[in-house]
């Protein structure tokens, strides 16, 4: 049996050149709190960028793969998604 790898361990394999400000913004935090029991972005985001912290959504943009899933998958279109500034963000070295 191979040791199951956690998402944190996977993220350690990736090089990020994080900007000082986020390229991802929850537009209306109230929607996450009151209208979205599933908080589905915390599940489908492949980098676990979105974490629900009791009353608010924590957005760990520094580990974002810039895939775009959250922008498309948020049922309330509540995520403003931009590209990080030129040169910042994820840096794939191989695949």
């Amino acid at each position, binding site marked *: *049996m*191979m040791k*199951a*790898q956690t*998402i944190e361990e*996977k*993220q350690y*394999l*990736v090089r990020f*050149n994080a900007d000082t400000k986020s390229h991802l913004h929850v537009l209306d935090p109230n929607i996450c709190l009151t209208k979205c029991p*599933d908080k*589905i972005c915390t*599940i*489908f985001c*492949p*980098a*676990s960028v979105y974490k629900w912290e009791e009353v608010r959504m924590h957005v760990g943009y520094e580990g974002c*793969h*810039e*895939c*775009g*899933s959250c*922008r*498309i*998958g948020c049922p309330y*279109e509540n995520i403003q*998604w*931009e*590209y*990080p*500034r*030129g*040169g910042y*963000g*994820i*840096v*794939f*070295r*191989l*695949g």
Partner: protein
Amino acid sequence: MPEKFDCIVVGAGPAGTACAYELAKAGVNVLLLERGEYPGAKNVMGGVLYRKMMEDIIPEFYKEAPLERPIVEQRFMMMDKESAITFSYKGLEWGREPYNNFTVLRAKFDQWFAEKAVEQGALLVCETVAVECIVENGRVVGVRTDRPDGDIYADVVVLADGVNSLLAKQLGFHREWRPDEVALATMEILKLDKTVIEDRFNLEPNQGCTIEIFGDATKGIVGTGFLYTNKDTLSIGVGTLLSGLIKHKMKPYDLLEYVKNHPMIRPYIQGSEPVEYLAHLIPEGGYHSIPKVAGNGVLVVGDAAQLVNAIHREGSNMAMTSGRLAAETIIMAKAQNDFSESMLDQYRMKLMESFIGQDLKKYKDATHHFERFPQYFEQYIPMMNRAASQMFTVDGASKWEKQQKIWRDLGSAKQKFKLARDMMKAWKVMK
């Protein structure tokens, strides 16, 4: 930097670079913009690059490009929990010129390809995001970048900005994609000794193998797993429609771990070491999702135009060909100094006449069919596995008895009728 070019290409992936290469070769003054630190830094692909469409641009590229292995065998696994039916084609004609396809690592390949465009005379500028198209009097006349004084002008702008084509969306060429028009793929690169790879996949040095995995790789969700051989690494991944992950409330990296630890897969990758983890969206809306691809002073190519054949895992080839066709159109437009939509729309016509338009049309309803009717992946693949197990297990029962057992396993008369109808429907969307 001069602030006016003949053409600006946004995005140095296979589509944008192919376009810039062809334009530069024809003497067109072209700027190739890339938001990553280098071309490939933002790009992800399972790893299969097709020889023909690349050679249409650079003949005999395989003699110098950074490739991993030419593929000589393609396997397809219909996988259940602890069994699999595997089909394969292996042909040594694929292992020699002119080759069929190769595995590549995109960060290396895309850099090499962009350098070739630069050799032809394209100007490559990295670490620059095109944040919007500059539109004047209903025509695109340039792009606004995130650099200071970052407005750059051109006769024509080519949007090769990938699956998240924010620029084409801003222009109103398409609405936001729906979660059932994109697949989320996660993958890992696993380091493994090359002789071990060759032993496990039954390969000679400089031969490669691809495995596509259906069924339990995605726990029944529409999608596929894949395992490809590189020189001294493996690429393993799993892609499902985003809508499927949402519906099943499944974490994509948990699914990847599930595939890696599946008893049918684990022996291939045992002892390997993960060296990179990657996630990316694949546009899988197909024919019905192709946006407007030509406007006044602007063209859309590659993933940005949803040019992916998900059934045959072809995308980079369509990207390259679309880039080349866009370049041909621009060269023609330049000769007549007419960059209007009616002129540039010739690109759309060329696209639709090519294998791209034809293949996407062929499978126009396939993805949606398999997403609407999950029984193919959830029920029929396990059923096939049970039938094979029954038929090939020698336990004293006669072959007639075994056939009857398989027949009974198909369910009631009503269920059998449904199965027959589903097979007909599958044939219809694939034929």
